[in-house]
């Protein structure tokens, strides 16, 4: 196997592909149909109310631009028809000026529409982000479904950003189409009522029926496509991660066949979607031609009967032709509307649960953190689900080191969440200094009990800012001391920019070991009396993991109480107690192995 580059070195500044992938955010996958909390689309529209005048202005500019285009064709048709009658040139001057003005107006208004619409959309984005962020915040991490919260959060960001398109691409084009379509039909009706009627009759199905049918047909396949895409992604990741195993055991072809199967599903869906989209376009073309024919027929008869001056016939047909420009973007608008709606629904569902923990009306004074006690705690994720934790007991005091062992899925992280009160137990209780955690303000609990995640998140900023996050008023010596305690200071001191070194996006420019140590320093800086470390070595190679665990545990004797959550037994003699959470499939009930 390949060795990763030596860990004790700053990675060169190059884009890691993770970043490239994050850059291309993919919205969340379709959710199973279920009852929605409220009406997400209506709520989204309500959210846009403060920016309504901007979107109206954008729609107005767009309508003026498109209207100028329609008028340009009509006026030009009239101009050359009049010209064909060889009048005095002077009589054409007005029309010529109009033609030139309209051509300028179209371009200018179009530019204005784009600027105004994008500005409005971005203004709204700020409001939308804050709104959804406020709802999401109390739910993270324990109130989110499933274990893959990283994917969920990435999907959340993509969905929030997708909802802004609702207005820009989903609402403005129909508004423009409505204005211009109605205006064109009215103008025609002024010249020849029946022609106006034909145009209205032609525009209506093009504006409503074709987009609706197209969207309905694509929607049916959207879930299959999303599922196949998900499989394709997952199996490709599996192929790369498992490549050495696959090659060594000569089973590459099986994996490639699984990928090809997902690809086949995608191909079938793509074919269907292509047929639907192409049929929509073809239908619009046919409808346009049919309407022009109808208007021509009506116009020809009217000219013969003297109801319409022949000089207007060309204008009549050309306005009809140009008016259909207004409805052409509508199938795309409908699709974007649907996408935004899907995003809004996912966001509503994701943020619908009540937060798993709330502050009491009158919290107790902040605890000191002398004893964190877990008593007969039970947790499950639904009334009919199996217990994830069933009868766990634990005592943690400053200075004491406990290892919590168990395979993935055995509830270790859930227990960690209980200890910092990201959630409450369904049965049993967790107390701090003798009082239930529920009686304290959440932030007071987290002041004394600090959790370090298994995927310690480093923010895209400097090492200093990342550590200082834990205590904004910390002085430089405090920060250095914390980093020193996490045994990462020597390395940082050796960097040209020291504490002000940028860690790169999500900390990609530091190795996994350094990242965990910086996260650990962050926890040390809080001065918390109890640290809960959730699998700090999960992503490290055995040697680095061993060093890190030894450092953490050796340091603890006089320091904070440490609960080390791990699936690897710690080196002998480094902990005071081992608590083993065995999965319920094993024969033994959860047991405790006291070595203290």
């Amino acid at each position: 196997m390949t060795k990763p580059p030596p860990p004790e070195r700053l990675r060169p500044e190059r884009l890691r592909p993770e970043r490239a992938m994050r850059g291309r955010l993919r919205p969340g996958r379709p959710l199973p149909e279920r009852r929605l909390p409220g009406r997400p689309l209506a709520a989204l529209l309500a959210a846009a109310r403060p920016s309504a005048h901007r979107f109206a202005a954008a729609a107005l500019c767009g309508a003026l631009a498109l209207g100028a285009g329609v008028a340009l064709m009509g006026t030009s048709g009239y101009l050359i028809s009049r010209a064909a009658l060889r009048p005095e040139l002077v009589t054409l001057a007005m029309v010529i000026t109009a033609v030139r003005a309209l051509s300028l107006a179209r371009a200018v208004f179009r530019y204005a529409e784009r600027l105004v619409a994008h500005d409005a959309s971005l203004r709204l984005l700020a409001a939308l982000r804050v709104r959804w962020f406020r709802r999401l915040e109390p739910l993270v991490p324990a109130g989110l479904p499933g274990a893959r919260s990283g994917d969920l959060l990435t999907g959340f960001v993509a969905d929030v950003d997708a909802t802004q398109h609702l207005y820009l691409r989903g609402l403005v084009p129909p508004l423009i189409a409505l204005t211009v379509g109605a205006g064109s039909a009215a103008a025609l009706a002024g010249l020849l009522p029946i022609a106006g009627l034909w145009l209205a009759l032609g525009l209506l199905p093009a504006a409503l029926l074709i987009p609706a049918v197209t969207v309905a047909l694509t929607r049916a396949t959207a879930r299959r496509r999303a599922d196949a895409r998900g499989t394709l992604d997952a199996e490709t990741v599996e192929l790369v991660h498992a490549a050495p195993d696959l090659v060594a055991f000569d089973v590459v072809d099986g994996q490639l066949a699984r990928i090809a199967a997902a690809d086949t599903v995608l191909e079938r869906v793509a074919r269907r979607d292509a047929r639907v989209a192409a049929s929509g376009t073809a239908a619009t073309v046919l409808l346009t031609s049919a309407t022009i024919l109808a208007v021509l027929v009506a116009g020809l008869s009217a000219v013969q009967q003297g109801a319409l001056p022949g000089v207007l016939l060309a204008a009549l047909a050309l306005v009809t032709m140009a008016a259909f420009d207004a409805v052409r973007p509508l199938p795309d608008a409908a699709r974007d509307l649907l996408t935004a709606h899907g995003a809004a629904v996912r966001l509503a569902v994701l943020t619908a649960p009540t937060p798993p923990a709330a502050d009491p009306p009158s919290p107790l004074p902040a605890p000191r953190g002398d004893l964190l006690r877990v008593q007969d705690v039970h947790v499950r994720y639904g009334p009919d689900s199996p217990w994830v934790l069933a009868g766990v007991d634990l005592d943690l005091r400053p200075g004491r080191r406990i290892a919590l062992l168990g395979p993935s899925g055995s509830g270790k992280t859930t227990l960690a969440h209980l200890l910092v009160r990201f959630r409450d137990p369904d049965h049993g209780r967790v107390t701090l200094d003798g009082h239930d955690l529920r009686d304290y303000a959440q932030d007071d609990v987290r002041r004394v009990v600090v959790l370090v995640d298994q995927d310690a998140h480093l923010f895209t900023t400097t090492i200093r800012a990342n550590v200082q996050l834990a205590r904004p008023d910390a002085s430089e010596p405090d920060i250095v001391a914390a980093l020193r305690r996490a045994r990462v200071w020597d390395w940082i001191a050796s960097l040209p920019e020291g504490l002000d070194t940028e860690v790169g996006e999500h900390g990609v420019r530091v190795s996994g070991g350094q990242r965990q140590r910086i996260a650990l320093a962050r926890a040390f800086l809080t001065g918390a009396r109890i640290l809960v470390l959730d699998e700090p070595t999960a992503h490290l190679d055995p040697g680095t993991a061993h060093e890190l665990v030894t450092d953490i545990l050796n340091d603890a004797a006089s320091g904070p109480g440490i609960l080390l959550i791990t699936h690897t037994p710690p080196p002998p003699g480094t902990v005071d107690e081992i608590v083993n959470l065995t999965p319920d499939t094993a024969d033994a009930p959860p047991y405790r192995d006291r070595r203290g």
Partner: protein
Amino acid sequence: MRATDSWLPRHVPGVHRLLAVAGLSAACAAVLTIVQVVLFAHVVVAGFLQHRGVRELAPSLLCLAAVAVARAAVGWARDVGCRVMANRMVRELRGRVLRRLVRVRPGRVTAAEAVTAAVDGGEALEIYLARFLPQVMTAVLVPPAILGWVAFHDVLSALVMLVTLPLIPLFGALIGRATQARTRARLRALTRMSGHFLDVVTGLPTLRAYRRGRAQAETVADNTERYRRETMGVLRVAFLSAFVLELAATLGTALVAVGIGLRLVTGGLGLDAGLAILVLAPELYGPLRGLAAEYHAGADGMAAARRIGDLLALPPAVPPPGGPPRPVRFGVVRLEDVTVRYDGGPPVLEDVSLEIRPGERTVVLGESGAGKSTLLAVLLRFVAPSSGLITVDGADLSAVDPDEWRRLVAWLPQRPRLRPGPALQAIGSADSRSPVAAAELVGAGALLHRTVGENGAGLSAGEVRRLALARALARPAPLLLLDEPTAHLDAAAARLAIDALRTLPGRTVVVATHDARLAEGADQVVELASGRAQRGADAMT
């Protein structure tokens, strides 16, 4: 674009056919458009100047309808045909990329890179092939056809068109170049800002743990507001090129209309030709505007093609044997002065000489980073030595097909990856000997009814290791390469594994470990430090 144009036909067979189909349909569309417009002008003029009625014009009206149907049909066939062809090409290309990925040095390409190139990139390329390329063909074929017809009837209008048409790409390019530097600097700032929300949201668990969650809402608002201001600065300039495009198209139409009007007054042109030219004017500028609208599809597609091309150009980890593959026979494996460097870096393994005799157990000891895993990778032929020689039964291993050789090798990786699904299936393959017996030998018998989740979820690291060890033992291969067989195992399980490895009749075993207990009773112990064999001692007892 040029790089892609030469790359695509070479790597994506069928792209010529797609271009031919797109070109043919664009040509059809051009002809149909002209016919339609001429018929239209004829009907209008006949109604206006000759006062003809519907009945007299019925044949023309019917023709007009027929042409419309033909136009719709050609468009439909083009859209569907190109999409289906593009899909097939991308699928085939994706298969090739993935097959290549498996053969490059493990770790050279990350999973994220693979997904970005093969899945996301494939999708972008598909859009490029299905939408952008046909649009290019339309932009190349339709305007000249229209221009030709117009020139035939009215040279002056054609001249106006000829002057305004190139303005679109010309001004677009000029504005693009003038603003490029400024835009690029701003875009870099933008990229940074646009990542902020994602950074905050994915870091929310951490922020909450440090009581900084709620306070972030304001930061998000501030940052998004800054993002808006910066973006609008970029857009004001970026939309200018769209403005010029629009202006050239509408102004062109207006100039043509006015010119025709004047020439009609002076009698230099017939009304039906004039009307047709007027209607054709928007059709002239349309394809170029369509191309501009698909600009992003084009840019994304090219970027995707470049990424995929990079992956396809990666060399396989081990060069394929030059001559006809030689049959391989297992025997003494001899390493002579083997050195391994990755990408010209410092040696990971340096001048290692070693003899692995059939039926014996060799233990390679060393700290993490000493080169143990690389030694196994060389033996697995995942990596070719930068210098030195490996022979098997006297024959040069590099002349042997790597897949042939690996049939003789079973391996326990440092980080085993088990196929998700029932554990028994994960450790047994078509040619395994009884996986159950192997599992029981290493104390993993009780694990066989368990289910392996994604990346081993649901199993502890020790359980994954025991199953992977059983998987290696179940493979009927004479050479066993085991990387850290006791890592993550508790004392009892480790003991069981150590004992199981001591008695493997007929197997040649190489164990890489930092666990000295595995060296008990070994036929040969090699100590590695910084890629060098420190000591090759015979059996320690």
